[in-house]
C-alpha cells in the first residue's frame, strides 16, 4: 500500500510542498496541486468505497465532477464535515481528513458486501416491490434497508462558515475553460463584450492542456504548448473576468445562471476562518457560450466495476497532469483511438502497458501505428468477457467478438493487469443546455445527443456541441463566434491545424460475454448499482418510457445523475425495444449539475437574517417592559407583558381587567395605513367598502368592511376623512400589503378614470391606543389644551393636536368597547409618545397590554378578527353584520356575489357566541361542534374560532361558526374532545356591554 507511483514531475504539482492527509484514519502524503484522488492513486490506493446496493468494492473511476464511485465524507466528526464529496474534486491541504461512505465497519471489510452474493434477490424495482408484497413483510425489509441505505452523514452542529450571494451582469458568459472556452472568452472580450469565464477546476485549459499527441499540431506546436501561451495572454485582456473553482449548477430561462464559487475549500483550517467559504453567483448574461466539454464513456461489460478499472482519459490525466501512474501493469479497452493516446502517454513515461483490447477490426491512424511500433500488443475485434480481483483488478479475460458484435467466439485469453483504462467514446456535456429549456437531437453517426439550437443568446461550442477533433472545434467555433458576437474576424482565422485522423468507429452499447446475461454483472450506473440486466428486466416487465425505466431501475438517480452511464442505458433500451435512440429521447437533466451545499443556497440568510422582520418604533419600550413577542406577518408584536413570573394566562387576565377598570395602552403601529387622496376618493371608497362613504363628514371616522369579488370578507378597518378629498384608511396588520395591491389593481385596471392616489404610510406613523375609563384623563394631561368633551370630540371622530412640539392625529375609536383614543405621531417620535402616555398614566396604574389581551377584549365585545373568525368563506351576512352592507348602493366589490343562490342559503356557517355550561372550561380554538353525541358518523356543524376566559365576565366565552347558527340562540350543542365532551349553549356573540354604554363612560 505504500508504493509510490509518482512517475514524473508535473508543472501542476509542487513537489517542494509536501502535504499530509488522512484517509480512513491512515496518514498519507501528497503534494500541493494534488486532488484527494490523485494523491491516493500515487499511494496506490484504488479501493475507496462500496457501492450503494451490493456494497461491491469500488475504486476511483474518473478525474472530474462526473465521478460515480469515489464519494467520500470530508473531515468526518467535525462541524465542517461534508458528505457525498467527489475525491476527484477535493484539492488536498495539510490536515485534510476523509473517509469512505456506505461501508461498515470498514471499506476493507464491509458486512453489506453480503448483498453482492444475495444480488439475485435484489432485482430492478426491488424497493418498489417490497411495498407491494404482503404488508407485514415491509417491516422486515425496512430494518434491513434503513441500515444499509444512505450515503454519508450530515453534520450535527451548526456550520461555522460564511456563505454569500452575488449578482453578476455580463454581456457574455463562457462556461468551461477548455480550449473552446478560452478562445471564445478571449475573442468576446477583445471585441468589447464584458465577459466572464467560469471553470469548475482550479486550472484553465481543460483536457487540451495535457494533450501531447505529437500528430496533432496547432500552429506547429502541440495543442498543450499552444494553449498555454493563449492562457498567458488572457491576463492582459480587458473586459475579461475569470473565475476558477466555479461550477455552474443551474441554467434557467432568460440566460439566468447560478454558479457556485468555491473560495476556501482547498485551504487549511487555519486559513478558512472568517472567510467566505462559497459564493452563489446569480448571473444574468446577455449571451451564454457553453463550452462544457464532453465526458468519456466507459464500456459496459461483465464485472466492469472493479477497483483499478478507470476511464482511459482519467489515466492519461493522472499521468500527464498529476504525474501519477494508476497501475504498474496497464491494459486499455477501447472502441476508438483515444485509448492509444493514453497508452502512449504512459509508454513515454516508462509505465508498462501490457495490451490494448479494441472492439474495432482495425484503425489506420498515426497514433495506432506508433503504439504498434512501441511493441504494445493490440487485440483487434476482441472484447473483455470477465474480470477478476475483489478489492483490486488482477486480470481480465478476452474473447473474439462476432461480426455483429452480439456474441463472442473462440478461446478465452487471460491477461494479468492491475489497471484497465476503458474508452467508450465521448458524451457531450449537454446538461446545462437542456436545463435552459432547449431540445436535443440525436446524431446517428457520432452516437450522441447534441444541442439542436444555436441562437443569438446561446451557443454550444467545442465537444459539448459535438466537435471532438481540434480541426472541427476551431473551424466551427470560429463561425459560431462570428455569428453570436456579430463580428467579421477573429483570432482563429489564421490558425493552422494538423490532425491525426481517426477513420474507424464501432459502437456496442452492451458488450457480450461467454456467460448468459443473467450470470453477469455489466454495470451501467455504478453509483446506484444498476446493471444492463436490470434495464432489460424493466423492459420485460413492460416499462417503455425512458423516465419510467429510470425510476424503476434507479439508473441515473444517484448524486452523479448517471453522467457516465446514461447513454448506455438509452442505447440498451433502444436496442432491446427495437427503436431508434433519437425517438427514445433522454431523461431530464435537472439542476444542480453537481451538488450544492445548503450553505451556498441560503447564503447570508441564516439565524436572525433567515426571515425579514419588522419592529415598531416603540419596540425598545416593550423590551424594557419584558414583553413576550409574537409574529404577526413580518411584525414582531408585543404579545403580553408578564410581571414577576406570571404565566401568559395570569398576565392576560391582569391586563384585561386593568384596561376595563382604569387604563391600558396598546402599540397599534402595525395596523396598515393607506393615505388616499384625489377628487374621486369618496367614490372610490364607496366602491371598495360595503357601506356608504359619500356622506361621511370631514373629521369623522367610519368602520368599513371590504369583500372579495366573490362576496367573502377580505379585510376591515376604520377610515377617517381628513379633508374633502383626503382619507386615511387602516387595514389589518397582516393584510396591509395585499389590500394596497388589490386597491391599486382596481384603480389601474378597472377604474382608471377615477382620480385617486394611494400611498402606503404604515411605516410613517407610530400609533398608541389609550383605552379604559381613565384614558380621557390621561390624554388631558398630555394635551391640556384639547377639548375632549363628547360634544367637541365624540366617539368616531378625529382631531389634530400637538403634544409639545410633536404633531399628532388622534382618532376617538375603540376596538375594546372602552372609551379609547388612537394617537398617531410621526414614527420617529413613537417612543417618546409611549413614554409620555406611561408617565401621565402612572397615577391611574396605566397597564401596557399586548395582542393577546386585545384579542380577548374585542372577543368580549364580539368584534371579529379577519383571518381568525373568518377564513375566506364568510360573507358579512354569515358574520351577522348585515348592518354594514348598504342596500342602496348600486355596486361595490363583491355585492353581486351576496345574491348568488349559494351565498343566500340559510344553512351557511354563521358567526355565533358559545358559552360553556361549566363557566370554567375554556374551549380550544379549532375544536369541532356537533349536535349529537350518540351518532356516528356525525355531521360537524362548525368550529370554535376564538376562545378565552373573560376576567371581566368571570366566565369562559367563545366565538364560533356554526351551520345555521343564527337561528340557534339558546340551543345546546357539544364540543367533543379527545377524552371528554363539553356541553355548550349558542349565544349572542356580543358578551359584554351590549348597549355600548362604556364607549362614552
Amino acid at each position: 500500500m505504500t508504493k509510490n507511483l509518482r512517475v514524473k514531475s508535473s508543472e501542476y504539482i509542487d513537489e517542494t510542498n509536501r502535504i499530509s492527509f488522512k484517509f480512513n484514519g491512515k496518514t498519507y502524503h501528497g503534494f500541493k496541486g494534488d486532488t484527494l484522488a490523485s494523491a491516493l492513486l500515487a499511494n496506490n490506493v484504488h479501493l475507496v468505497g462500496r457501492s450503494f446496493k451490493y456494497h461491491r468494492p469500488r475504486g476511483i473511476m474518473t478525474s472530474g465532477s462526473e465521478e460515480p464511485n469515489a464519494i467520500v465524507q470530508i473531515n468526518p466528526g467535525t462541524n465542517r464535515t461534508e458528505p457525498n464529496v467527489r475525491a476527484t474534486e477535493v484539492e488536498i491541504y495539510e490536515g485534510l481528513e476523509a473517509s469512505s461512505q456506505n461501508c461498515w465497519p470498514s471499506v476493507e471489510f464491509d458486512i453489506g458486501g453480503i448483498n453482492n452474493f444475495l444480488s439475485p434477490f435484489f432485482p430492478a424495482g426491488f424497493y418498489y416491490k417490497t411495498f407491494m408484497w404482503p404488508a407485514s413483510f415491509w417491516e422486515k425489509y425496512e430494518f434491513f434497508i434503513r441500515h444499509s441505505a444512505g450515503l454519508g452523514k450530515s453534520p450535527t452542529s451548526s456550520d461555522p462558515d460564511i456563505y454569500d450571494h452575488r449578482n453578476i451582469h455580463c454581456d457574455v458568459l463562457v462556461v468551461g475553460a477548455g480550449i473552446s472556452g478560452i478562445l471564445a472568452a478571449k475573442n468576446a472580450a477583445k471585441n468589447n463584450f464584458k465577459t466572464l469565464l467560469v471553470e469548475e477546476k482550479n486550472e484553465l485549459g481543460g483536457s487540451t492542456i495535457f494533450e501531447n499527441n505529437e500528430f496533432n499540431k496547432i500552429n506547429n506546436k502541440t495543442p498543450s504548448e499552444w494553449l498555454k501561451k493563449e492562457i498567458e495572454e488572457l491576463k492582459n485582456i480587458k473586459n475579461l473576468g475569470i473565475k476558477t473553482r466555479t461550477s455552474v449548477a443551474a441554467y434557467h430561462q432568460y440566460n439566468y445562471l447560478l454558479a457556485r464559487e468555491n473560495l476556501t475549500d482547498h485551504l487549511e483550517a487555519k486559513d478558512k476562518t472568517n472567510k467566505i467559504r462559497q459564493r452563489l453567483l446569480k448571473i444574468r448574461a446577455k449571451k451564454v457560450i457553453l463550452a462544457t466539454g464532453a465526458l468519456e464513456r466507459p464500456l459496459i461489460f461483465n464485472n466492469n466495476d472493479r477497483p483499478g478499472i478507470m476511464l482511459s482519459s482519467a489515466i492519461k490525466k493522472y499521468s500527464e497532469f498529476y504525474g501519477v501512474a494508476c497501475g504498474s501493469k496497464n491494459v486499455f479497452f477501447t472502441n476508438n483511438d483515444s485509448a492509444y493516446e493514453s497508452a502512449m502517454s504512459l509508454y513515454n513515461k516508462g509505465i508498462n502497458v501490457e495490451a490494448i483490447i479494441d472492439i474495432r477490426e482495425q484503425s489506420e491512424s498515426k497514433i495506432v501505428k506508433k503504439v504498434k511500433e512501441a511493441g504494445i500488443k493490440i487485440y483487434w475485434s476482441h472484447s473483455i468477457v470477465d474480470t477478476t480481483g475483489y478489492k483490486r483488478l488482477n486480470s481480465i479475460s478476452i474473447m473474439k467478438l462476432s461480426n455483429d458484435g452480439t456474441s463472442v467466439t473462440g478461446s478465452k485469453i487471460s491477461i494479468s493487469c492491475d489497471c484497465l483504462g476503458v474508452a467508450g467514446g465521448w458524451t457531450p456535456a449537454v446538461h446545462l443546455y437542456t436545463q435552459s429549456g432547449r431540445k436535443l437531437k440525436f446524431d446517428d453517426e457520432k452516437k450522441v445527443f447534441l444541442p439542436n439550437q444555436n441562437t443569438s443568446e446561446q451557443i454550444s461550442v467545442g465537444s459539448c456541441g459535438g466537435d471532438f477533433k481540434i480541426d472541427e472545434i476551431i473551424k466551427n467555433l470560429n463561425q459560431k463566434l462570428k455569428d453570436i458576437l456579430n463580428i467579421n474576424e477573429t483570432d482563429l482565422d489564421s490558425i493552422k491545424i494538423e490532425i491525426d485522423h481517426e477513420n474507424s468507429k464501432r459502437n456496442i452499447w452492451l458488450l457480450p460475454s461467454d456467460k448468459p446475461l443473467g450470470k453477469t454483472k455489466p454495470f451501467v450506473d455504478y453509483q446506484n448499482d444498476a446493471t444492463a440486466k436490470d434495464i432489460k428486466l424493466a423492459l420485460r416487465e413492460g416499462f417503455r418510457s425512458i423516465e419510467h425505466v429510470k425510476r424503476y431501475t434507479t439508473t441515473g438517480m444517484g448524486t452523479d445523475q448517471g453522467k457516465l452511464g446514461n447513454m448506455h442505458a438509452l442505447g440498451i433500451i433502444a436496442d432491446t425495444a427495437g427503436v431508434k435512440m433519437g425517438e427514445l429521447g433522454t431523461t431530464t437533466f435537472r439542476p444542480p449539475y453537481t451538488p450544492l451545499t445548503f450553505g451556498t443556497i441560503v447564503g447570508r440568510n441564516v439565524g436572525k437574517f433567515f426571515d425579514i422582520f419588522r419592529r415598531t418604533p416603540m419596540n425598545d419600550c416593550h423590551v424594557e417592559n419584558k414583553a413576550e413577542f409574537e409574529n404577526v406577518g413580518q411584525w414582531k408584536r408585543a404579545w403580553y407583558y408578564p410581571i414577576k413570573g406570571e404565566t401568559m394566562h395570569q398576565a392576560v387576565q391582569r391586563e384585561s381587567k386593568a384596561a376595563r377598570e382604569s387604563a391600558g395602552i396598546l402599540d397599534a403601529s402595525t395596523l396598515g395605513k393607506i393615505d388616499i387622496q384625489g377628487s374621486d376618493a369618496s367614490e372610490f371608497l364607496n366602491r371598495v367598502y360595503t357601506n356608504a362613504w359619500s356622506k361621511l363628514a370631514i373629521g369623522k371616522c367610519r368602520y368599513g368592511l371590504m369583500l372579495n369579488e366573490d362576496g367573502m370578507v377580505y379585510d376591515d378597518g376604520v377610515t377617517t376623512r381628513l379633508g374633502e378629498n383626503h382619507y386615511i384608511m387602516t387595514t389589518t396588520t397582516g393584510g396591509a400589503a395585499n389590500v394596497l395591491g388589490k386597491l391599486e389593481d382596481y384603480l389601474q385596471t378597472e377604474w382608471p378614470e377615477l382620480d385617486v392616489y394611494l400611498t402606503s404610510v404604515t411605516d410613517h406613523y407610530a400609533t398608541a391606543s389609550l383605552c379604559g375609563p381613565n384614558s380621557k384623563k390621561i390624554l388631558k394631561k398630555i394635551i391640556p389644551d384639547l377639548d375632549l368633551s363628547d360634544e367637541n370630540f365624540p366617539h368616531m371622530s378625529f382631531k389634530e393636536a400637538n403634544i409639545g412640539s410633536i404633531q399628532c392625529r388622534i382618532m376617538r375609536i375603540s376596538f375594546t368597547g372602552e372609551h379609547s383614543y388612537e394617537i398617531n405621531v410621526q414614527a420617529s417620535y413613537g417612543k417618546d409618545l409611549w413614554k409620555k402616555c406611561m408617565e401621565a398614566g402612572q397615577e391611574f396604574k396605566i397597564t401596557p397590554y399586548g395582542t393577546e389581551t386585545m384579542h380577548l377584549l374585542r372577543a368580549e365585545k364580539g368584534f371579529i378578527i379577519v383571518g381568525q373568525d373568518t377564513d375566506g368563506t364568510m360573507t358579512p351576512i354569515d358574520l351577522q353584520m348585515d348592518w354594514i352592507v348598504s342596500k342602496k348602493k348600486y355596486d361595490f366589490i363583491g355585492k353581486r356575489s351576496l345574491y348568488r343562490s349559494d351565498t343566500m342559503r340559510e344553512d351557511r356557517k354563521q358567526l355565533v357566541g358559545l358559552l360553556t355550561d361549566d363557566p370554567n372550561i375554556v374551549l380550544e380554538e379549532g375544536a369541532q361542534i356537533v349536535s349529537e353525541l350518540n351518532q356516528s358518523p356525525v355531521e360537524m356543524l362548525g368550529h370554535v374560532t376564538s376562545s378565552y376566559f373573560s376576567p371581566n365576565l368571570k366566565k369562559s366565552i367563545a366565538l364560533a361558526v356554526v351551520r345555521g347558527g343564527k337561528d340557534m340562540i339558546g340551543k345546546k350543542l357539544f364540543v367533543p374532545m379527545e377524552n371528554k365532551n363539553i356541553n355548550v349553549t349558542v349565544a349572542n356573540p356580543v358578551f359584554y356591554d351590549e348597549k355600548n354604554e362604556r364607549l362614552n363612560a
Partner: protein
Amino acid sequence: MFLINCPYCGERDQQEFKAGGEAHIVRPKQPTELSDDEWAEYLFMRKNIKGVQFERWNHVHGCRKWFNMVRDTSNDEIKAIYKMGEKPPSQ
C-alpha cells in the same frame, strides 16, 4: 427566472413581479343585471392555455404598475408586453 421588461421601469428580474391571472376580463358594468351563471362566468372561469396566453402582471416590488404580457406557457417566451388599456397585439 424571467427577465421582464416593465413598460415603466425597463428590464427587471422576475422576483420583483407578481402574476395576476388572465388578461382582458372586464368587470361587468352592471353586475346586478347578470344571472348567477353569467356572474360566475366572470368570477371563476379562467383559461389555462398551453401555448400563447394573455396575462396580467404587476411590478409589485417596483413601480406597482399593472401591465399585460403575452407569454407562451410552453416555453415561457415573452412575446409582448403592453400597458393597461392598450390594444393587445394581434397574433
